[in-house]
């Protein structure tokens, strides 16, 4: 599974093919979720608009920035390992993990706020979608961080080099997916009216 570091044309899909299978299935899950959300919003447009205003857009925007930035960091990590710079790669991965941690903290604050206001899955349809969609994404952020962390551990043991960096690309691809889903989720649930 090792790859030579050369300037040949980029491959169709970076990383392991298996992760792409997984990514496409994840996107399918979120895709169905988004479509159902859109249909339910059409049916209850006033209610959705009313309760959308209670969401914290500032925190949402900050989280968007955090995830996009952290996505950039994993790009740097892949770049570093292609140049055989293992310690640099590890540093960028830690930076990406820090971005993910920031996301989880801000999101937890948001949840704390909503839960202490007595908001639950059964409060109404809008909150049901808001909570279940964001919580499902929240779990994906955790999974993505676990994957990145596993790569950090492997990198520390010297498993990656400019000859063999498929693993780093694989984790980076998954992390981009987590980011991408949020980039759709945030405007869909928090902004679009």
């Amino acid at each position, binding site marked *: 599974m090792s790859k030579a570091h050369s300037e040949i044309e980029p491959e169709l899909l970076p990383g*392991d093919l*298996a992760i792409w*299978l*997984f990514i496409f*299935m*994840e996107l*399918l*899950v979120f895709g*169905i*979720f988004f479509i*159902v959300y859109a249909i*339910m919003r059409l049916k209850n447009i006033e209610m959705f608009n009313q309760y959308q205003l209670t969401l914290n857009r500032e925190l949402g925007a900050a989280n968007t920035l955090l995830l996009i930035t952290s996505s950039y960091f994993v790009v740097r990590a892949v770049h570093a390992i292609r140049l055989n710079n293992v310690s640099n790669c590890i540093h960028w991965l830690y930076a990406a993990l820090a971005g993910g941690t920031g996301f989880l903290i801000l999101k937890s604050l948001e949840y704390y706020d909503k839960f202490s206001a007595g908001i639950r*899955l*059964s409060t109404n*349809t809008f909150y*049901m*979608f808001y909570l*279940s969609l964001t919580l499902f994404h929240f779990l994906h952020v955790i999974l993505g961080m676990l994957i990145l962390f596993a790569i950090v551990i492997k990198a520390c043991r010297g498993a990656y080099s400019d000859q063999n960096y498929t693993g780093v690309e694989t984790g980076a691809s998954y992390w981009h997916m987590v980011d991408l889903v949020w980039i759709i989720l945030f405007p869909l649930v928090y902004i679009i009216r």
Partner: protein
Amino acid sequence: MMKYESQGVAKLYFIAAIGLFTGQILFGVVMGLQYVMGDFLFPEIPFNVARMVHTNLLIVWLLFGFMGSAYFLVPEESERELYAPWLAKLMFWIFLVAGALTILGYLLVPYAQLADLTMNDLLPTMGREFLEQPTITKIGIVIVALAFIFNIGMTILTGRKTVINLVLLTGLVGLAVFFLFSFYNPDNIVLDKYFWWFVVHLWVEGVWELIMASLLAFVLIKVTGVDREVIEKWLYIIIAMALISGLVGTGHHFFWIGTPDYWQWLGSIFSALEPIPFFMMTLFAFNVVNKRRRDHPNKAAVLWALGTAVMAFLGAGVWGFLHTLAPVNYYTHGTQVTAAHGHMAFYGAYVMVVLTMISYSMPLMRGQKAGNQKAQVLEMWSFWLMTVSMVFITLFLTGAGILQVYLQRFSEDPLPFMVVQEKVALFYWMREVAGLVFLIGLILYIYSFFAKGDEVVFAED
């Protein structure tokens, strides 16, 4: 022919599993007839008792099958003898005696009296579908499961750790943990049903899928010689999808039982995705067999492995999807459509994966690499007889179910339950015939173990 001597304990478990399987099918055939001849064998074996025995035997023999499979698989994967073979043998006899006594209890005394005899009032857990076992039997199951997991766990932890044996261990621990919900028996019937599904659903659509995937992966590695690395990757994705879809997918049981209505959304969305891991298992099995590096002499085992993948997808995946969306389930809830799905899903996923393990390992435990020519031909015949008759059982029950939904729930003038049952009787008769063919297939299957014939010639070692 076994790599480790202690793998041999699996034989005991498999023989008991096949014995109880036969019991299950006999009661199934009796009950199938009772659908159209209500007083057949009454009062000796009333319908509700036959049903309880049919479903309980299924669960117990599958547990025997899983344990036997684990005892065969784990030493080989961990590259060491079983931690405590004596414990495995002891637990076998305890489980067998406890299981037999429980079934005899169902058959010989009225259920209420069984509850009294076993002092159910101290910790009431009886009287719930599939979890009818007396409390003392349930405690016995927990003890057997703990001893089993200890034995398997110690073998794995002190031996080689592979993705296959770690996934299997996770599945088995999950099986034990979720069974604990059977001791929680709240007064509120909604809560009772809610947590009841934590056992039933999270077993069959959660942790059992992990067990199934790892058993299938093990057999496929052995019979195809394909790289472990490839198979492990598949395993990772399959279990990830099984858990993502299956855990929240529990919601499809919460549609009309008094739970909050958001379950209709969560249940529909996530359970609509539950066919995906099964579909991937099908792709996985065929892909790996196509890439095989050798032709294993045990053709029957390869057939069972491929059959498992296909039938699990059809039974659990397609037939599950048929009635999993809340608006559809509004009409089909608790009809023969459910029974159709139940039959093919249990057969296709769990019965067949255990039979796959038995097919692969039994010849090895009897000192051969594969059964003789005649035995394998007979076994493959039994595969087709059982599998095709199960397809027909499923189709007939689906026919009965669709008619039932229409006449009883959908039409302008809905008819009462029992009137509808008489109208769909033809389907029940046809199902009974298919059930008898299944029984013939099973008899042939058992006979195949004793058939004598020419040894299979090995192309290579």
